[in-house]
């Protein structure tokens, strides 16, 4: 698909903004009637084609933010827009990958992958070649007629990624997608994800609580701190592409990682 572009060229003019959040607030009411601020004054702007990681400890509101971006949850105040249009409902422009693969066990891999097309009553035949291409891309060729329980965890998550990409969304939202996988599989999936991102020119927002993972993958890291969930800092990661696992042991990588770790630990000292 891609024309064998090895390094990502710095765009001459900055890419257009894809998603823009301004002063997002989200307040939950608990069962006991207490109010919990999940997000406080969150603002950011993400350009088309960027790989963004949102990193933070649990309870920092990153999953809430993700659900708002997916159109699954309304914000209490503030605004968020994709391509200039406010997000009010789930959109075809957004593909989502959860921490668990969430494949429907009674459907074959192919039926799972085509599920969004079926739900939106789009032409299943039109999307079939794309689904097949994507399955080949992630190494699931020949597994179309298998059922999820016949696949390993890593393979299931690959199928979930294909499902998110099948309708060619502009934005891929990933909520700790590799958190349930073992370390080896996880590293491999990170590399594959970067390959997919590169060849399909997607914008990716990737939620993780792993600092090295966030530095390895991102163009920019959004570090969030909990109670209330807010952005501590947005860090530009200026490491060459394509990234390799060797970079993890480099000095610059270490500087980024320890900077983010300090940001996240500072928040711990406060409470």
């Amino acid at each position, binding site marked *: 698909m891609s024309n064998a572009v090895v390094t990502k060229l710095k765009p001459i003019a900055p890419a257009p903004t894809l998603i823009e959040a301004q002063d997002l607030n989200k307040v939950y009411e608990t069962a006991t009637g207490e109010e919990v601020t999940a997000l406080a004054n969150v603002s950011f702007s993400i350009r088309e084609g960027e790989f963004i990681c949102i990193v933070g400890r649990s309870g920092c509101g990153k999953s809430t933010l993700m*659900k708002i971006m*997916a*159109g*699954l949850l309304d914000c209490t105040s503030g605004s968020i827009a994709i391509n200039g249009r406010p997000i009010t*409902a*789930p*959109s*075809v422009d*957004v593909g*989502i990958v*959860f921490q*668990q693969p*969430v494949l*429907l*066990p*009674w459907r074959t891999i192919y039926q799972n992958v085509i*599920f*969004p097309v079926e*739900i*939106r009553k789009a032409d299943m035949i039109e999307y079939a070649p794309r689904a097949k291409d994507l399955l080949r891309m992630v190494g699931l060729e020949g597994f179309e007629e298998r*059922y*999820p*329980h016949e696949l390993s965890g890593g393979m299931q998550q690959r199928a979930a990624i294909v499902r998110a990409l099948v309708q060619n969304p502009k934005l891929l939202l990933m909520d700790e997608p590799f958190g349930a996988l073992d370390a080896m599989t996880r590293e491999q999936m990170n590399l594959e994800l970067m390959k997919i991102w590169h060849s399909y020119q997607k914008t990716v927002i990737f939620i993780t609580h792993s600092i090295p993972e966030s530095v390895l993958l991102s163009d920019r890291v959004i570090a969030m701190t909990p109670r209330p969930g807010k952005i501590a800092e947005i860090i530009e990661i200026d490491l060459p592409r394509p990234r390799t696992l060797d970079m993890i042991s480099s000095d610059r990588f270490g500087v980024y990682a320890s900077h983010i770790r300090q940001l996240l630990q500072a928040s711990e000292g406060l409470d």
Partner: protein
Amino acid sequence: MTVLTEDRIASAQRPARRRRRNFRRLDQLISLAILVIALVTWQLSVVWFKIPAFVFPAPLDVAAWLIRGFSVPIGNNASFIAHLGVTGFEAATGFVAGCVIGVGLGFTLAHNARAERIVYPYIQAFNALPKIAIAPLMVVWLGFGLEPKIWMAAILVFFPMLVNSMAGYHSVEPDRIDLARACGATRAQIFWKIIVPSSMPFIFAGLHMACVLAVLGAIVGEFVGARAGLGMLLLQYNNNMQVGGVFAVLIVLGAIGYGLNVIMQRLEAKVCFWARRQKSFGAN
């Protein structure tokens, strides 16, 4: 590395599996032998100790009753087939009615948390009642025809179906619903494409109980007052001290129960092939 070890494990398992299968066949043979020995002992002791047939019939006696029951013309009052037809119809109709009402109400309540909170205590209270005890009331209300039997079967079927469909609805992983919503699914799509299939293992747990309870309900209904049916026939033989006939009817009833269970298991294996047997939530 891993492939090699897995291979070795697999090759080590193969003879073991064959041995296990042989053992299973042996166990089946032993099982059958026990039945034969029991039947022979039973026959011989009845003959030797001269036990009267109205107390405890010999197996050959019971067999004769069975053969007679299935060979007399259907018009005859002793025809098992005719009575089986009546009981079968009552049980099947009650089964369908109980399933439809139980699952329908179960999903409705599970969907409306408020309605569930309001109604569920009453359902629990009614479920605590020994439902068989309302059979005489059914006769008062609905007479001696098929209706009271059908409703007895339906009531017995209703509760496990209600409880299991509610449990099934509540067991749906929220992620699955989020997934469907993220794909833009309508409420109807979420219900039919996520909730119903996700609930199937629970529904089947209910169905396993329900198919036995449907027959039970029909029989109890017939005990209270009926013109036909296996329950009526059983009671008639009992009153006439024709214990051989009672045994024969019991065997037919046992066979029905067993058959229904096999059918349900097959159906479940087909529909819920993806699920390991999950917890069943039963109402007696």
